[in-house]
């Protein structure tokens, strides 16, 4: 039970962070299909920080350092998307896909190059961070609390406030809905879209490091993040581009993901003797069914996916 809760929260944290990232990007009008790639780059930055940081430092410091580096990596990488899609009006789905492929390849190449530089015999793309990773968690009884759960929660609250209560949020959403309108009242659409994409880079970058530290103390970058970025997109759409709904959707998805791993701990589930594949399919089937019932009224930001051109009307 505790485990189910723990892993539900852990998976949900990843999904919340990344889905919120997608949410900011799309509210600014840019579809970010490259979340998966950004996650990988954020994860790489965070993992390398964990690897090199002095693990005897106070854990708060370690958590902060990891956060900062993941954010920087995610943000820098997402600039590739912003640059191509905002300034050069590139097809957003294409660039997003390219970023996913690129991140997987680049992260592996970078990790390998670093490893080889350290030890010519180590051509692996694995980054280990056993010692420093311990700083990320606190055991509360049987429950293993992860600081990133708190980060995700804070991100959720902040996202809500920023989108609905601040000037920035209002302007950002205007750019995703009707950029011409935003432009006509003196809002710099390009700037706002850059902001949206960079925020998505920041959140997805953090999501990446949370994902790879959620269960293990080393990561092999050839494996990427195994489709979590796409799952987060589903969460975002399921959550109707609204932070609170995204939070709930992430919990639902996280729950089923966790259940598929820990079901053997529940006697009645174990007794059902359902093949493992079915549990594995469950999160996808459930989300498909739920989407089928909820999508009729779903409304994406109107201008998302359409490059903004000052000249056109």
């Amino acid at each position, binding site marked *: 039970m505790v485990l189910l809760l723990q892993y539900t929260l852990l998976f949900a944290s990843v999904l919340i962070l990344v889905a919120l990232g997608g949410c900011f990007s799309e509210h600014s009008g840019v579809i970010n299909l490259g979340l998966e790639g950004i996650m990988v780059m954020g994860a790489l930055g965070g993992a390398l920080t964990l690897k090199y940081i002095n693990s005897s430092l106070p854990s708060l410091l370690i958590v902060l350092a990891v956060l900062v580096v993941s954010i920087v990596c995610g943000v820098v990488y997402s600039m590739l998307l912003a640059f191509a899609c905002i300034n050069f009006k590139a097809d957003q789905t294409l660039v997003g896909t390219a970023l996913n492929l690129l991140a997987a390849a680049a992260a592996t190449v970078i990790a390998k190059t670093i490893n080889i530089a350290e030890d010519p015999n180590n051509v692996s793309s694995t980054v280990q961070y056993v010692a420093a990773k311990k700083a990320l968690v606190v055991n509360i009884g049987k429950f293993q609390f992860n600081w990133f759960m708190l980060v995700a929660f804070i991100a959720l609250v902040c996202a809500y406030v920023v989108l609905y209560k*601040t000037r920035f949020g*209002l302007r950002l959403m*205007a750019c995703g809905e*009707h950029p011409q*309108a935003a432009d*006509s*009242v*003196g809002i710099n659409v390009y700037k706002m879209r850059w902001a949206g994409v960079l925020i998505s880079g920041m959140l997805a970058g953090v999501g990446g490091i949370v994902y790879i530290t959620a269960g293990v103390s080393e990561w092999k970058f050839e494996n990427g993040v195994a489709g979590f970025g796409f799952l987060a997109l589903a969460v975002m759409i399921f959550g109707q581009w609204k932070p609170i709904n995204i939070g709930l959707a992430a919990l639902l998805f996280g729950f089923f993901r966790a259940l598929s791993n820990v079901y053997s701990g529940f006697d009645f589930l174990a007794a059902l003797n359902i093949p493992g594949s079915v549990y594995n399919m469950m999160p996808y089937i459930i989300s498909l069914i739920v989407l089928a019932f909820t999508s009729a009224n779903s*409304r994406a930001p109107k201008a998302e996916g359409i490059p903004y051109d000052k000249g056109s009307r």
Partner: protein
Amino acid sequence: MEETKVADNSEYAIEMLGITKRFPGIIANDNVTIQLKKGEIHALLGENGAGKSTLMSVLFGLYQAEEGVIKKDGKEVQINNPNDANDLGIGMVHQHFKLVQCFSVLDNIILGVETVKNGLLQKDVARKKITELSEKYGLKVDPDAKIEDITVGMQQRTEILKMLYRDNEILIFDEPTAVLTPAEIDELMQIMKNLAKEGKSILFISHKLAEIMSVADRCSVLRRGKYIGTVNISETNQEELSRMMIGRDVQLVATKEDKTPGNVILHVENMTVPSKLHHNNAVKNVSFDVREGEIVCIAGIDGNGQTELVYGLSGLENITSGKIELSGKDITHASIRERSTSGMSHIPEDRHKHGLVLDYSLAYNLVLQRYFEPEFSSKAGFLKKGEIKKYADKLIEQYDIRSSQGADTISRSMSGGNQQKAIIAREIDKDPNLLIAVQPTRGLDVGAIEYIHRQLIARRDEGHAVLLVSLELEEVMSISDRILVMYEGELVGEFDPKTTTPEELGLYMAGAKRKEVGA
């Protein structure tokens, strides 16, 4: 301090002197000069594509002119973006509203000039100011309503409030009346006069000469990017204005012969159509006929179910109950395609959304209703491109559709007027028994309107049925043979244009009076 002194010296609020603006391949404004006096309503008149919107966009900072200077209160200014314009007190209601559909009225008004405290929006402060403004100028709005839920008129009021909220002194209205109902137009005219009285200077673009005559103090005319001249309204008339604008005489009122209607072509019985947006019926239990050789007009204020009525007739929306017959054939449950092939043509209300595949060539768009016919496609399912081209060239010639590359022009790049001509050519050349035309002249200049009216009347004269849906009373009165007034989804009156007056129609349109109508 010094600025105000200079300002006091100048007679003009804004002067645009020798403005030239080029787009690739076209000079949209060629050395244009207009001067806006303080406290006046200055009309700007010109054909479609004459360069009015462009000129206003230059003033509002959306475009930068290649040549020419802009002076505010006699002092030269640089306007590089809407922020500069706003700082100079220039505001604009755009031809196509620039409102965020899913935002509230309030959010739209404050967008760009939000009041914040500690980074958080202070909406209450804004709400107070908006309420004050709307009371002062008689602009009724609900600040918390979403734009997508309110009428076009309300949206326009929101746009005006946007300018007032920014304390703008110079107000630009780009074709504000094209989308309004007669009552709303009257209201707007009144508001504009009030604003002018308050000392605001107004630039007003319209194709409707009557409006200009009734509200403007002076009028400047553009033709093909060139400045033609400025006249005082008190010293001119509609004929002179249209001559200035087009360069020839225009027949402003359509003339037609009397004709006795023949057999019933369209028979509608107790039709009810649901509304997409709201959870009720937009058209309630409506019955009427349209006969050969008559133009029946559905009049009414926008949003009273006309759109849904046409959707129901054309099959774009399934009707909940009732019966539709076309030339005696029951088409109640027929598909859109079946209706079309059974002799129904439909000039849609929204030409960009429904009327055209904007990224297709003109030729492809001209066969949009007929591409599947043996004339244009082989049995194996191949398009006969040669035939399509030939047919397109014929229509382009016959209906005088102007475009840069003939049949190969991408429709998106054509002017609104010519896009509309293409649709009309396509729908009329199908030789339909019934032609449904929804606001076919919206946003077009008088030359184009004259042309379209002639086409509709020609259909009628050839003995076919025409159902016209229009919001413009003038149009309704001048070309219809029979008028049906629609109010809140019901037909509330039937009139003969020869024996009724716009005033009487207005009463029915506003729901003040009603009588039984039936087929």
